[in-house]
């Protein structure tokens, strides 16, 4: 259910993204052309000089969504309004309704109990409640879209967000939507923490847990601790907007920088709520598809916790350009600190490939794609963490490209990887690997075309959230938009592969990839209580060298000869 809801919102957010790119392909702008008479003959004045007039062009987006008041069609402002609403929609939906719940809620709810050998999460009804809350929050957001949309950006920066469109409730609806979604996050987090503590199968110690569980555990801690802060902040925002209580708006005696501190105190840790589950998924896929024990299990597990801890200390790096010297310096140093556990994880994954038996299945293809894209995303974080270069790159397309490489190249790509990895388990059907691989390559090409161009746009000086731009940036924007269409095509291929799999896919075996974690012992799809008998854990989650995968024989997966000094 979560999966369906999240995929629907992903579709909606994706549409908004395509709208944004379409506007930037052909922005609403003014051009000067020679005037013509009724017969189409160019007009000249008495001196023989051509008569020039200005025209507004680039109404592609406005023609898709014509305004109620027809006079507005053909105005620059209407095009800009559409664009501002589209990017706000894209940001808010993708962050609050897709990326945050994607892996934890849809894959986590399904696989945390399975991997722990439990019947269900600790509080199944709480889980259901959090789904209802998620849907309620999403409905609030969708309502605000139907009522005309919000133009604040997903960050709702004050005082803009408390003063825009004073006669409409859209902003309040959207903010309340995000507020409600927060409860869904908190409940899911609580549920996971208790599940991990209480419901591990007999024989499974903390360091016998799959790394996906470690990642989800770290994520849940952040969710439970940080989400209340954004809840309070968003409520204060609503109060200020509705009752004119001065908290953030200087004309009422408030301070807009306070809002930024509050907002990023949550929203920075949440970046790791988005990426840690992705790390977890990668830590599952790479060992299974290369049939190799993960390199440095404890380092990966502790890196998750380390990232979760440091994530609370770096929010100020979103504000290098707004607040002064010493604070920014401390935040810059701490920001570099967070790079270390992340780098350690990447090294461990790549080291896991060494002397493996690597099958280029669709999930593995996506996992390798993740390593590629996330490395770019991580390394382009360096000039943003360095104070001097950030003052140039902050709020430019460089940032846009960077966080798409991290958030989309990291989380969404991994979500798709996990979906392909566990699809046979969830639905009991295989999918067409060839076409899924074609989709994966299309996504890869489209992704890089869309976002790599944006690094150049950013260093050259293109600011974020611009509905139109000066001429110098045109070529790169065209490439980026073409890339986004390729990306859309890639995801459509996946959609059809999945639909085909549901309708006509052949039945999936219980353990299609030869995995060792407990979910592969259950049937595909799992029975109502997941396992027929409570499983007893006798081997580690990645002991491919000593254990034949369940449902397979040693002929299918022969074991290597162990040297005498192993283990």
């Amino acid at each position, binding site marked *: 259910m979560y999966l369906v809801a999240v995929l629907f919102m992903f579709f909606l957010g994706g549409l908004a993204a395509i709208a944004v790119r379409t506007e930037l392909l052909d922005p609403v702008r003014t051009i000067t052309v020679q005037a013509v008479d009724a017969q189409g003959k160019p007009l000249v004045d008495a001196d023989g000089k051509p008569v020039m007039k200005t025209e507004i062009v680039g109404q592609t987006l406005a023609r898709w969504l014509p305004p109620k008041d027809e006079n507005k069609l053909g105005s620059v402002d209407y095009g800009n309004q559409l664009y501002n609403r589209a990017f706000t929609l894209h940001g808010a939906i993708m962050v609050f309704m897709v990326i945050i719940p994607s892996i934890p809620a849809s894959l986590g709810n399904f696989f945390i109990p399975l991997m722990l050998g439990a019947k269900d999460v600790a509080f199944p009804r709480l889980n259901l409640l959090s789904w209802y809350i998620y849907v309620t929050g999403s409905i609030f957001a969708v309502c605000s879209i139907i009522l005309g949309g919000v133009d604040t950006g997903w960050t709702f920066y004050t005082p803009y967000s408390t003063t825009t469109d004073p006669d409409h409730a859209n902003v309040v609806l959207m903010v309340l939507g995000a507020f409600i979604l927060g409860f869904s996050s908190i409940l899911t987090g609580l549920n996971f923490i208790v599940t991990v503590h209480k419901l591990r199968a007999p024989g499974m110690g903390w360091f016998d847990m799959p790394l996906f569980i470690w990642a989800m555990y770290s994520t849940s801690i952040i969710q439970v601790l940080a989400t209340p802060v954004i809840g309070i902040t968003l409520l204060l925002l609503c109060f200020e907007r509705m009752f004119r209580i001065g908290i953030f708006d200087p004309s009422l005696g408030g301070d807009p920088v306070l809002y930024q501190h509050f907002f990023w105190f949550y929203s920075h840790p949440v970046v790791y709520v988005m990426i840690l589950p992705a790390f977890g998924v990668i830590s599952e896929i790479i060992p299974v598809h290369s049939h190799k024990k993960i390199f440095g299990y404890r380092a990966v597990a502790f890196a998750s916790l380390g990232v979760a801890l440091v994530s609370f200390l770096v929010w100020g790096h979103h504000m290098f350009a707004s607040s002064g010297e010493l604070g920014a310096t401390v935040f*810059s140093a701490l920001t570099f600190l967070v790079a270390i556990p992340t780098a350690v994880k990447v090294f461990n994954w790549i080291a896991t490939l060494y002397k493996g038996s690597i099958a280029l299945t669709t999930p593995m293809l996506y996992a390798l794609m993740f390593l590629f894209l996330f490395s770019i995303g991580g390394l382009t974080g360096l000039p943003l963490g*360095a104070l001097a270069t950030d*003052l140039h790159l902050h709020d430019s397309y460089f940032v846009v490209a960077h966080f798409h490489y991290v958030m989309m190249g990291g989380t969404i790509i991994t979500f798709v990887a996990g979906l392909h990895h566990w699809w046979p388990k969830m639905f009991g059907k295989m999918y067409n690997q060839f076409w899924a691989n074609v989709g994966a390559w299309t996504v890869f090409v489209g992704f890089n075309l869309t976002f790599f161009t944006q690094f150049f746009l950013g260093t050259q000086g293109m600011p974020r959230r611009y509905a139109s731009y*000066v001429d110098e940036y045109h070529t790169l924007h065209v490439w980026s938009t073409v890339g986004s269409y390729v990306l859309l095509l890639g995801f459509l291929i996946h959609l059809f592969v999945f639909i085909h799999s549901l309708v006509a896919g052949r039945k999936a075996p219980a353990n299609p990839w030869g995995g060792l974690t407990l979910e592969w012992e259950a049937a595909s799809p799992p029975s109502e209580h997941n396992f027929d008998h409570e499983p007893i854990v006798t081997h580690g989650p990645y002991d491919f060298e000593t254990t034949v995968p369940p449902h397979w024989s040693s002929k299918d997966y022969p074991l290597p000869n162990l040297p005498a000094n192993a283990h």
Partner: protein
Amino acid sequence: MLKTLTNSWTTTLAESPQGLWANGWRWFFQNFGVNENAKLTDKLFMEIFWIGVGWFIFLMAIMVYCVVKYRRRPGVPAPYSPSHNTPLELIWTIIPCFFLFYIFLEGFHVYIDKLVAPGDALQMTLTAKKWDWTVTYPNGASSPERTLIGPDSTQFGGENGSPGARPVPIFYMPADVPVHLNMISQDVMHSFWVPDFRVKFDVFPNRYTTYWFQAKGPDAESNTLRDSTGNDIVTAQGEKVRYVDHFIFCAEYCGDQHSEMLGIIRVVPMAYYLAKVEEWNIEGKTPEEIGKLVYQSQGCSACHTLDGSKGAAPTWKDLYGSQQPTNQGSVLADDNYIRESIYTPQAKIVDGYPSNMPIYTTAQIDERRLQGLFAFMRSISKHAPAQATPDATKSEAPATEKK
């Protein structure tokens, strides 16, 4: 060693525009640093860039090698290899620390240069509002000059047109001296970014932030300033005036015309800058002239047109002395109403317009400038009582605006 390597590469890049790598450099920045800070920033960026490229190629090479070398062969198990190696793991934890620490220190070093203005800098005030910038020069004058960007302009834009339809302000700045801007916003947050200077800083409604720069002056190849008929402007010494333009962008989202909140910093020789600033000084001008200067320099023209066409706010043509329908009932647009609309704009909103008007203070528009605005608005309104004009030539200046 890596540092020396990257240093020598980036130095080569920075100093040889015609070099093999110059085009690569242009992909990133379009131009070479126009001042010391920008050059340092570019150098740091390129160092980080090459460090990043190095690591990326290193990691991806290992990954691709493993994927090819250790691809799955049916029936062949993965050979045994240890899954844990403490010295190796320590090494790859510690080595990145050195890189990161180096980048942090360099970033901090240049950052301080960017933030702390030299004590002898020229002090100016920059105000931001939806969706315009105003610079107030040390003598209290502001620039009334604007230009369309796009095909009409000689300097910017091109075949694809320009964002928005209204002209953007031009701020004349003296070359080769430090300039210190004290920045404040009149409504929401904005961010002042001149990409060529490689610095942006946010502008808040409730506190001053500062920005400083020192721009390299025009050289013999720079464009020459021209008057409206296309002839070169020549100084008293007979020299052509050359200039260098830099774009200003607003980098903090601020609403509908965020992407049109542009401006141009025009760096000219000191002598010409002083002459310009003196020309815009309101001393010795008639009220109407003062009013027109205020209209052009305080950003009124961003929303209020003079020709009767509809902008984001009521046009000033025939406004003075007319009845305006507002949310507080019909109001006569007289001195008191206009004064109220400037200092407390939310009091009455004319029907059909959003409440977009920024709040002005008496420091920005003092009594003398306010009286000037009244005079200017009277001169373009048919409802205003006819004024006795002692000097016929002076009353013609605003009349040209009616076209």
